[in-house]
Structure formats: C-alpha cells, structure tokens
C-alpha cells in the first residue's frame, strides 16, 4: 500500500506542482523545489521498497489490465526516477538565479517552472507506465513541454530549433502511435504484460515493433535522426538544456529497452541488434567528430550528447555477451543503463557549467572563455569532473558502465563494438580536452573580463558532476537495484 502511494506521488506531486506554479507563479521556485524533493523522497522510498519486496505493480482505478492502466516500478524505473528527480531538484535550485525575478512576472519566469515540473511528471509517467497508449500521451506531454522550453529565450534560432525539434518529435510520436494501434488490433490490449505473454511473430507485431522503434529512435536522436538535437539543446536556456539533454532522450530510449527486452525479445534478432548497434556506433563516431570541430561550448556539449546516446544502442548487440567467467550477469545491459544514468548526471552538470560561463562571459564562444577557470575554479572543476565521466575514466559511473559493456564485447568476440566504445572514449578526450584547456589557460590580456558568480550558484553543477562520479564508486547499490525485475533477455541477449 505505501509503495503504491509512492507510485502515485511520483506522478501526482509534480502535476500538482505544475498547477500551483501556473496560478501562483510568485512562489514557483519554492513550489518546484518542494515538489522535486517530494518526488525524490518518493523515488528513494520506492527504491527501498523495491529492493526489499521486488517490483511494485498497481492498477489505476482498480481496473486491471487489459481494461485499465497499470503502473509498475522495477529497479530500472526506480533508478531512472531517482536520477531524474535529483537532476530536476538541482536544476531547479540553479534556475532560481535565472528565472526568478522580483517584482512583476516575466514571460520566461512564468513559463519555466510549470514546464519543468510537467516534464518531470511526464518522465516519471514514462518510467512507470505499462500501457503503450498511455505512454503515447506521456510522450506528447514530454515533447510539448520540452519544445516549449527550447523557445524560452525567444531568439529566432531557438524558435527555428524548437520547430525542427517539434517536427521530428511529432513524426516520432505518430509512428509510435501507429505501432501501438496495430498492437491493439492484434492483441486487444495495450498492456506490456498482456502483449508480452502472447507474442507470436505475426506481421502485425513485426510492423508495430518496427514502427515503434523507428519512432522512438527519432525521439532519442539516434544517428541519422539526430539533426534536431544540437540546435535545440544548444538553443535552450542552460537549465532547460540540462534537462533536455540528460533526461528527455533517455525516456524514449527507456521505452525502446522495455519494448525489446521486456515485451518482445522473441521478435528481435541479428538484423535488429546489428542495425541499432551499427547506428549507435555511427552516432559515436559522427557525434564525436562533429563535437571536435564546434566552436561554441554548448554545441560541443550537444554533439557530445549525440555521440553518447550512441553507446546506449550498442547494448542491443552486446546484451547476453557475458561469459561464464563473469561473476555478474547481464553485464552489458546493466552497463548500458548505468551509462544512461551517469551520462544524465554528467551532461546536466556540463550544461549548467556552460550556463554559468555564459552568464559570466556573456558568450559560450570557446575562445572567449580563455582563462575563465581563474574566476570560476569550482565550475571549471565541475566541468572537468563531468568530462571525466563522459570519457569513461575511473572512478566515474561512465567507467563502470564502459567496463561492463567492454567485458561483454570481449567475451562475445564483439571486437567491432569494443573498438567503437574505446574509440568513442578517445574521441571524447579530444573534444573535451580543448574546452578544459581553454578554461584553464591564462587570459590573453590581464584583468578580469568575467563577471564573478556566487559560490552557491556554482555548487549546482558540482553536485551533479559528483553524482556522476559517485555512481562509479558506489556502483554496487545501483547495480543491485537494476537487477530487480530485470528482463530475462538482458541476460540471455536478444
């Protein structure tokens, strides 16, 4: 009972906060903080309950599937919810400096808070939903709030970027919806559990799964559908970018994983895993190379997202690759999930750092940031820590993730995947070294071209970056949690 209450709170609280911030925008920042704290507490409570008693399942309205909608929280959803809650909490604290203006309400000061909270609600809704149509509604909630966030600064480029994003996302949604419709036509149900039990490899299922995967890949910005991501993520205000880049693509990825590993692993096969893995590999190489040649910090960070999202899709060919020698199971799958989580923390930290740099230097042109570490050593340090996690260097969460994935790659003879993972790490070193070096260099002319930033404000990115590191040192708990309710296919492979 209490755990289903927590499941309620995790969606209900941010929705309530959404309403409150609309009518009571004066106190929006406080409401947002309280709300995300409630969400975080509920998520942690769920984590404890899930580790003690296994996955939590609840039927809304007392109507069981297939008639009603069921929500379920297993280790995977709980981990994603904790990380999302933490990121939104920190981003909210950061944004108090940017979106709270004393006196009369402003446009962005009004809009940011409800959008942030409804984004959180949508994310949590996605992480616990078991119903394919409900997921569609959640995705639209997510997309609309994300697109609106991109426009917050009102610049022409941001509007253009938001439009491009919206078009891609809508196409993704509609393909996904068609898939869901076909599933209902075939099974008379939209519930993952019901469908998962009766998969029969019919044409309807294959087409549906293909359409949903394509739609989700569009929303995850998998290469070659990535074109919308860099302008959108670099055009949004930094706190928004932090959430857009770290969490929003993960939601669609999360459902891709659910779809293939939980619901229809029988349908997957080499063509699918090779295609997804191959596109993921291409994303790593392409995204990294693009990041190397960018001249603006936010563009570097945004292209890095394209590359890092690529890793997530290498999980498909690697899953099940562990040999008998490994004392753990489902290494690649767990590694992929850990990568998603640590990337979320590191990437949000980076965007917040970029935001502080922009406030201090009034631009994110890389050359203009020369020497900024002298004014903001803490932020530069946080950026470097986040970079370490993205590179997959120890002791960060990114390292454990890569270690697990690489072990599977070697154990299963997947040399090409191992190569891609390693090459991605070295390329990341190339594109992240440049900004770090520029920040640490001495300024060209003496004197302080940079506006000083309060120390407390600088704590926000540092907390997130440390979180990414902690995910590596303290990886055992997350690892164990991720195993609860883990799909069989995560261990046996697709």
């Amino acid at each position, binding site marked *: 009972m209490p755990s289903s209450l927590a499941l309620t709170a995790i969606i209900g609280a941010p929705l309530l906060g959404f309403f409150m911030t609309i009518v009571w925008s004066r106190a929006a920042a406080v409401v947002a903080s309280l709300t995300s704290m409630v969400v975080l507490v509920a998520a942690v409570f769920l984590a404890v309950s899930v580790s003690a008693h296994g996955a939590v399942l609840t039927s*809304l309205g007392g109507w069981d599937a297939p008639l009603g909608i069921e929500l379920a929280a297993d280790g995977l959803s709980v981990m994603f919810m904790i990380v999302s809650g933490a990121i939104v909490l920190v981003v909210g604290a950061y944004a108090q400096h940017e979106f709270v203006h004393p006196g009369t309400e402003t446009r962005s000061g009004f809009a940011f808070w409800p959008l942030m909270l*409804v984004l959180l609600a949508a994310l949590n809704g996605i992480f616990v939903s078991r119903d394919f149509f*409900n997921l569609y509604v959640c995705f639209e909630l997510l997309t609309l*709030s994300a697109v609106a966030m991109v426009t917050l600064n009102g610049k022409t480029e941001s509007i253009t970027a938001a439009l491009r994003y919206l078009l891609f996302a809508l196409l993704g949604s509609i393909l996904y919806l068609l898939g869901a419709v076909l599933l209902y036509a075939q099974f008379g149900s939209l519930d993952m559990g019901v469908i998962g039990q009766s998969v029969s490899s019919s044409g309807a299922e294959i087409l549906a799964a293909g359409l949903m995967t394509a739609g989700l890949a569009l929303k995850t910005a998998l290469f070659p559908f990535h074109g919308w991501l860099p302008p959108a993520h670099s055009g949004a205000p930094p706190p928004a970018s932090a959430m857009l880049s770290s969490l929003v693509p993960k939601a669609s990825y999360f459902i891709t994983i659910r779809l293939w590993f939980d619901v229809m692993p029988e349908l997957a096969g080499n063509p699918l895993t090779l295609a997804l893995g191959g596109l993921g590999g291409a994303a790593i190489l392409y995204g990294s190379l693009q990041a190397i040649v960018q001249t603006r910090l936010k563009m570097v960070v945004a292209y890095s997202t394209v590359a890092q999202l690529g890793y997530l899709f290498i999980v498909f060919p690697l899953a099940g690759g562990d040999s008998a020698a490994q004392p753990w199971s489902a290494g690649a799958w767990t590694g992929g999930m850990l990568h998603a989580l640590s990337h979320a923390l590191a990437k949000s930290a980076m965007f917040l750092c970029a935001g502080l740099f922009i406030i201090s230097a009034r631009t994110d042109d890389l050359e203009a940031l020369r020497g900024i570490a002298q004014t903001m050593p803490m932020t530069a340090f946080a950026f470097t820590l986040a970079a370490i996690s993205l590179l997959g260097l120890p002791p960060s969460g990114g390292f454990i993730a890569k270690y697990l994935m690489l072990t599977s790659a070697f154990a299963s003879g997947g040399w090409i995947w191992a190569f891609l993972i390693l090459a991605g790490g070295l390329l990341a070193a190339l594109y992240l070294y440049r900004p770090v070096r520029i920040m640490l260099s001495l300024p060209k002319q003496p004197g302080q071209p940079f506006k000083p930033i309060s120390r407390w404000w600088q704590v926000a990115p540092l907390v997130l970056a440390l979180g990414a590191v902690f995910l590596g040192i303290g990886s055992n708990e997350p690892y164990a949690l991720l195993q609860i309710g883990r799909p069989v296919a995560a261990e046996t492979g697709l």
Partner: protein
Amino acid sequence: MIDSLFDLVLCALIIFVAFAAVSGRDLFTAIVFFIVYGLMVAIAWLRLEAIDVALAEAAIGAGLTGVLLLGAYGRFKNIDAARMGSWVPLPVLIVIALAATGLSAAVGVVLIALDPNGLGLIPAVNANIAQSGVFNPVTAVLLNFRAYDTLLESIVLVVALVGVWTLADNSAWGQRVGKTQSVRANGVLQSFGRTLPPIGLMIGIYFVWAGSSQPGGAFQGGTILAAVGLLSAMAGLFPPPRVNDARLRLSVIAGPILFLAVAIAGTAWGGMFVLPADLAYGLILAIEIVLALSIAITLMLLVLGPPEMTETPQ
C-alpha cells in the same frame, strides 16, 4: 450492397479530398480541403458507429484545427511567394513517395491478415460498465477505466497553452491575448455574436451532460463552448483576457485540478483513480462539467494565441 457502395464512395471521396488537402495548389485551397476532409471523416465515424468520435472529429479535428490553420494563414500575408516553400527536390520526393506507399501497403497487408472476429475489449467493457457509474461506454473508458489517460490529456492542453504563451514578446507579457480585433459597433458580426451565445451555451452544456448516457462529453461540449467564446470575443462582446489574470489561469486548470483531486482522493477508496460505484456518477459528472469549462477556455486561448502588443495604451 447499397451500404457497401456508400462506404466505397465515401472512402474514395475521403482519399480524394485528403489528396487535395495534401497536394493542393496553394495553401489556402489546401486548408479548405482539409476542413472538408475533416467533415467527411466525421461521416466515416458515423458509419463506424463511433458517434462520440464523429463529434470530436467534426468539432476539434476539422473545426478547431481548421480555424488554427486559417488563422496562421492570415498571418502569412507578408511572406513573399519565394519564401512560402514548395516541394523537396524530385529524387527525395520519389524516395519519400516510395516509403509512404510501402508503409501504407504494409499496414494494409497487416489489416487484411487480422483476425476478422477480433473483439478487442468489447466484452471487458460490457462486463464492467455497470460498475463505472455511467451508461455511455466511451465515457466509462474516458473517465473511469482509463481516466489516467484523460487526465494527462487535459494537461497536455494546458502545456500546449503554456507553450503558446511562451512565444509572446517579452514586452507583451501581461497584455491581452491575441491580436485586437476591430469590430464595427452594431455590425452584423456583433449582432450575430450576441444572438448565438445563449444557444451555443445551451448546446455545449447539453453535450457535457448527455455524455454520461449518450454520445457527448467534456471534450466535445468544451469545444462548442470554446467556439461560442471565440465568436463572442471576435464580436467584441468582451475583451480578450490578460495572460497574467489569476482568475483566467485558475479557470484553465480548474478542471484538471478537480480531476487530479478526485484521482488522489481515490486512494481513500482503495487506490489512485478509484471511484466507488455509488459515487461514480456524481463524481464523473462533476469532473465533466468543470473539465468542459476549463477545456473551453483553454481551447479558446489556444486559438487566440500569445499576447501581442497591438493595443499599447497611449
């Protein structure tokens, strides 16, 4: 036989009109054909015995969407022909055409292969409708069996509204929404705007109320109410509201809030969204009425668009 012939003709017409809407010569023609298309699809829904959907399609799909598109078209006046856009290059066009055809064919093949006796959830709905509190199965699904979806859907509308408002100029924040209309006092539009609202209100409320037992419901009723409100605003009966008007914001979220509150209250009866059978009818009706009003206002505001600085007080 006649039935089938009618269906065939209707479907052919739908496809033809859709083709015209997608590939029509100019934008205006395309939009007009799109509205016609929506109405014809509504007829198709009637043929599929989905009267609720037919109402929603006519009111929202054809009506409101059409109004939105026409409104945007009106603002494209200053764009010269060269920047109005055209088709993508021919090779790309061919690829797209092939892909789209392939998808249609695949869906068609899948449909033909479907079990022709698939019942979906008809038995489940019939078995449980008695406990749902309402007699219209569609309303039962929307407000009880899958009330969660409906709650989120009503929130999607509000998010869209926040998104639309975000597109205002910074300086226009706090102004009245939309462009100011100039209406001739006592002109024909104004008298029309005066005549219609009472009737429109009556029809809208009727739809909401009827929803529990007959086709209709919050979304259809709300759309009609929104139309009435828009017309009245256009006729200058009342000035468009300001974005920072607290009562306006409260009215936009009142419906979703009540819905969420009832959903949370359900935990007292056994879980989120649980409606006890004896209270279900009353609760659903209450939600529907408040929701319809909120939806009406939200839709109206969506059509009016973000505040614009056209009425600077001198």
